């Protein structure tokens, strides 16, 4: 059975480094981050975490969604607003932008269009719901408390808001979630089961969603915004968590051609694997991730020496970055020629939406003619010797790229794409 070709026709991003293509490209080109000291982190007892990031122009601090603001006109009904949480609010805007770029209209978001999502639910809303339960009792909690908090909230909110009637499913594999969503969406379209799938990853990224990683020593303890997120750098102490959302419209090449819509990227295949080692830590040798990369190479048909860029998962944790360095060397040898970078040096770590955010950033940057470097990479980890880890952006015209993601439990994904 021949597989249908899969392409990207729309992208929408709401991230710490911007929510328009222009602002994102400007910030990527200037290597400008949005990390800052946040009192929300330091207010907690025994907190060594002070640096976080927020979405510019979006304000979702209030516990009541009717107070939230963003730079786009919104027309939510009160019922719709009641079931939203911050990440669904971001995802709504990202999806609107992606649909607009893909030149879709509401009539086309019917049975032919599916929706795959990735989010951990809204941890702060779960917390508030439990607080109400304890303080006021069962019949005094928010009637929308479950709808706006538990895993799945992104799926049912977006499908109702955009009247999507095709397959609708959520993916949870921690920081590989949105990459899994993209991979399985690719499969559905390639197998001819769905013409088009809107894939969305999103995270609240607020204090309650990020700070619990502190006890694991996974968060950056730097108090300097300029050196808080340091993937691949010897000085790294952990990641900076971030919220936001990214939506990518995937469709079969024939459906896109029929509509005469511009193809932003070709999705050639993907690989996945599990470490089978530890519930949180990656297997130190990176064997699991290397199998995912090998799977992506096999599935895409990319020759290893034809790869022009690898967007790393590298979050800035000691063990995670090392495992990825070893995984890359395991597949490509000690000194592959292509550049490798982590855009988390600018965005921070988007957790379950990290993978799809990075696919969006890769497509935007490469389409604009440059390959992103790893911002602030001054002292590369000695173990990375031999790898091409540029600090600065490269004007090298790369088109064929891989993007890695790894989640808790060693859930690994590698996606293979090419610009048209």
């Amino acid at each position, binding site marked *: 059975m021949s597989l249908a070709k899969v392409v990207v026709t729309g992208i929408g991003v709401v991230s710490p480094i911007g929510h328009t293509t222009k602002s994102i490209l400007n910030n990527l080109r200037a290597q400008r981050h949005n990390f800052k000291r946040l009192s929300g982190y330091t207010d907690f007892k025994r907190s060594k975490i002070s640096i976080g990031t927020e979405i510019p122009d979006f304000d979702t601090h209030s516990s*009541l969604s009717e107070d939230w603001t963003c730079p786009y006109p919104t027309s939510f009904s*009160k*019922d719709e607003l009641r079931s939203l949480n911050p990440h669904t609010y971001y995802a709504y805007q990202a999806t609107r932008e992606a649909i607009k770029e893909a030149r879709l209209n509401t009539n086309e978001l019917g049975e032919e269009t599916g929706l795959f999502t990735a989010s951990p639910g809204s941890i702060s809303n779960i917390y508030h719901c439990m607080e109400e339960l304890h303080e*006021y009792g069962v019949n*005094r909690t*928010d*009637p*929308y408390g479950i709808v706006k908090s538990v895993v799945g909230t992104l799926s049912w909110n977006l499908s109702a808001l955009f009247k999507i009637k095709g397959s609708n499913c959520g993916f949870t594999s921690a920081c590989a979630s949105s990459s899994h969503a993209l991979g399985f969406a690719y499969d559905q379209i390639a197998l001819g089961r769905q013409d088009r799938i809107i894939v969305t990853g999103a995270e609240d990224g607020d204090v309650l969603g990020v700070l619990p990683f502190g006890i694991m020593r996974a968060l950056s303890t730097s108090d300097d915004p300029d050196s808080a997120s340091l993937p691949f750098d010897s000085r790294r102490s952990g990641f900076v968590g971030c919220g936001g959302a990214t939506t990518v419209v995937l469709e079969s090449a024939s459906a896109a051609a029929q509509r005469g819509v511009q193809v932003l990227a070709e999705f050639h295949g993907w690989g996945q694997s599990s470490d089978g080692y530890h519930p949180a830590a990656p297997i130190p040798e990176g064997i699991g991730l290397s199998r995912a990369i090998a799977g992506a190479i096999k599935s895409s048909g990319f020759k290893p020496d034809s790869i022009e860029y690898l967007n790393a998962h590298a979050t800035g944790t000691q063990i995670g970055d090392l495992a990825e360095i070893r995984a890359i060397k395991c597949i490509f040898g000690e000194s592959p020629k292509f550049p490798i970078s982590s855009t988390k040096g600018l965005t921070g770590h988007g957790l379950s939406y990290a993978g799809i955010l990075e696919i969006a950033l890769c497509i935007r940057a490469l389409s604009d003619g440059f390959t992103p470097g790893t911002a602030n990479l001054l002292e590369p980890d000695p173990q990375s010797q031999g790898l091409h880890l540029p600090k600065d952006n490269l004007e090298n015209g790369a088109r064929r790229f891989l993007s890695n993601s790894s989640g808790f439990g060693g859930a690994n994904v590698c996606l293979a794409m090419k610009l048209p």
Partner: protein
Amino acid sequence: MDKRLEDELDRAPKGTREALSAFKESGDLDQLEVFAKGIIARNIDDAYAEVLNKADDSTRMVDDLGIDSLTMLEIAMTFEDALGIELIDDELSGIKTYGGMREYLVEQIKIESS
């Protein structure tokens, strides 16, 4: 008065809180209706505001005012906390019109005070 009820009264149209106080003092059913309308207005879309202003006994809760079952629970919680009454789920779900709801509220207040 708990924080949730305070928030609801703060965000309800002007005069809602005052009408609640006036009803509690005098038992004036007209004030009860002003309060009830204020709480409903707080919970429905502005698009239905005009219909609510002109609501009569036959105005339908779902079709005319856009109140779904979860929104009805939100409204009922506020009625219960503000008026010190208990609304029964089965009876609440049987209320189809604005007039039916008003009658039911008055009935429950009578039961509570007897």
